[in-house]
């Protein structure tokens, strides 16, 4: 499995999706769509904004992950970590967006329960990714000392 390609491909496609979503949100602003902008739909607006932000950021995180895997020599990525990063990029923004579609006054819809699951996956993915770097070798240590 080429994890680098997988994260890059996922990241760029996700970015494309969230760029489209951004355009949709801008359009709703432009045409002053009450379903999105009315005070009574404040929670929907918040959920969509959070969904858009988290989706975009996690798309970029996946691109960064792909580049890291490709660029760092000896980087060890466990399959579960890769799965977690992609899963988080789906569940976290997806939870916000689903929660925004059907709201209960001050509460988002039930879709928002995906958010904590996504958040845990993201935490696991980020920590797992940080642990995937190779230990400091003698070569790298001596390079630093020279500086």
């Amino acid at each position, binding site marked *: 499995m080429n994890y680098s390609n997988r994260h890059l491909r996922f990241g760029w496609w996700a970015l494309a999706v969230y760029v489209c979503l951004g355009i949709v949100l801008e359009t709703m602003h432009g045409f002053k769509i009450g379903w999105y902008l009315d*005070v*009574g739909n404040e929670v929907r607006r918040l959920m969509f904004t959070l969904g858009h932000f988290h989706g975009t950021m996690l798309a970029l995180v996946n691109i960064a992950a792909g580049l890291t895997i490709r660029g760092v020599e000896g980087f060890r990525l466990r399959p579960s970590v890769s799965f977690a990063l992609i899963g988080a990029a789906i569940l976290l923004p997806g939870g916000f967006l689903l929660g925004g579609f059907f709201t209960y*006054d001050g*509460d988002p819809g039930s879709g928002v329960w995906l958010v904590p699951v996504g958040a845990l996956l993201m935490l696991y993915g980020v920590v797992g990714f940080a642990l995937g770097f190779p230990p400091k070798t003698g070569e790298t240590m001596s390079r630093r000392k020279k500086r």
Partner: protein
Amino acid sequence: MFKRLHSGLFFWLAALVVVVAVVIVLMDVSQHSSSAASTPTNRPIAAQEGDYVTSNSCRACHPGNYASWHASFHRTMTQVATPATLIPDASNVELSFAGRQYKLERRGGNIFVSDRSLGEKDYGPPRQVVLLTGSHTLQILWNETGQGRTLEQFPFAYIIAEKMWAPVTQTFLMPPETKEAYSIGSWNGACMDCHVTQGLSKFVEGNKWDTMVAEFGIACEACHSEGREHIDANRNPLRRWKLHLTKSDDATIANAKRMKGPESTLVCGQCHSVWAFNGMDTKLDWNQSGGKFRPGKEDLVQRFVVQPNEKDHSAQKDFIRRTEPDFYRNRFWGDGMIRVTGRETNGVQESPCFKGGNFSCISCHEMHPTTTTRVALDSWARSDQLAPKMDSDQACLQCHKEMAARLTSHTHHDAGSAGSRCYNCHMPHTTFGLLHAMRSHQVSSPNVRESLDYGRPNACNLCHLNETLRWTADKLNTWYQQPVPELSDDDKTISAAVQWLVKGDAGQRALLAWGMSWEPAQKISGRDWLYPYLIYSLLDPYAAVRFDAWKSLQTLPGFSDFKFTYTADAEALGAAVKQSYEKWWSEMRPANPNFDPKTALDPEGRFQQDVFGRLRRERDDKPIVLAE
């Protein structure tokens, strides 16, 4: 060495950041403590009361409902006076009334009132305007008195639509000799009962009060009860989702939508009714401990809704009758139907619809519309907070579905005409307050007896202004088999509207002066003959009648820009009447006049002096107060 310098610099930078952060925090702390120390002592204050949490706490979870409440005139019923809440024309104003001159001055962020007797050189010491009542029809100002939190009314009110100041006594229907609407302390002892959320009057001694409220204005908890338990319980997200998904009722908060009709109506009726205390002990308890009624209860606990015809609280109602002989006359028609505005619960409770147990205020009105754009909310607030389509027959058809199929056979009017609108016949404009007539909220059917026995204008003659009671009696007999009562010669030959306007009491005259501006009535009754009667009413002894005559005249061709100071002295009123009558006579009267004799005008348009003079002499001049 560089490394040492580098780490030293880092240390000092970090120390600087810490010092700046500490200074900022200390500034915040001092700001908070100084604002706490500067709690005003010259006016009632909003303070933590029991389990009341204020509307700010509701906002986070109910933004839409908060927005609709915020757009409503309930919120601004009582406001602390600031440049933002005070009407713009309230600075550097000089006004005179009842031998005294008043000056309103803005100093910094505050407005002050000072006064002097007419002819005196110097104004007395300035008193700060501290609270405001109203922002829809009128704005009334309340001043500090130097006696703790006791308030005194500024004797002028601002009529918002007209952008004019008028003596408060002339913004309600009150006898002309009334010089003071509310005495010192009235706000603390009476007005605040309904103009704030959970007020505590707290009488001290003499005329001194130490008043506090949970929130100024009519806020969320006035209708939903205290929010503490609701907020505490709903911090748990699992509880919230359980309620969302099962669509269960939340027992921790009151909601009129979930109540039966009577309880739901009482949520509004705690204020929108003529009510009285059960006794002196409950009044004292109310003043010291606050209201015990909570939305959802079946009665007002320390108080009761005064319904003259019901058997409840007979001892208290007799006591009122003995101690305040005009109490009923100033509020009710002779048959017990409410005749003042703002007390709609009295009407609703006596309506046949109410007996079914499901009918309530929110059958037609809504407090939280779904659409929360600013424009939509503004429109909703200004259209009596009606629910969608409730300004149409749909209000009645939601229950009386069968009527839709036989509308014209029931109404005997064209389907599209005003005569086929349910509320025009069953909720005519027979209540009065705040200078205008409003629809009766006691759903009833028009009949001639109500006019003969109690003087209440019936729906037919409020539209067919030029017709007699005989005409109405005949129509009601033909269409609905109502018996034709015995009628006087006048009732057979003179328009009922003319009789009410000329010989009625001030309340009847005000209803007719207002009613002559009602477009459906003008359309069906003709406009030409209304001029002389409205011009005549500009001289009415009651300011409220003059005001409505003036506003009605402005709806007639040629008088749309008619200027008239309804509060002016008799001489100025006379001059204005003379001028407007001449204008009508020479410019607006039809070229070939032929006025209907039923209007008590001769064919040329002059008053039939014998008839008019007699009606005028028969005028009911018994003093009457129709306070809102």
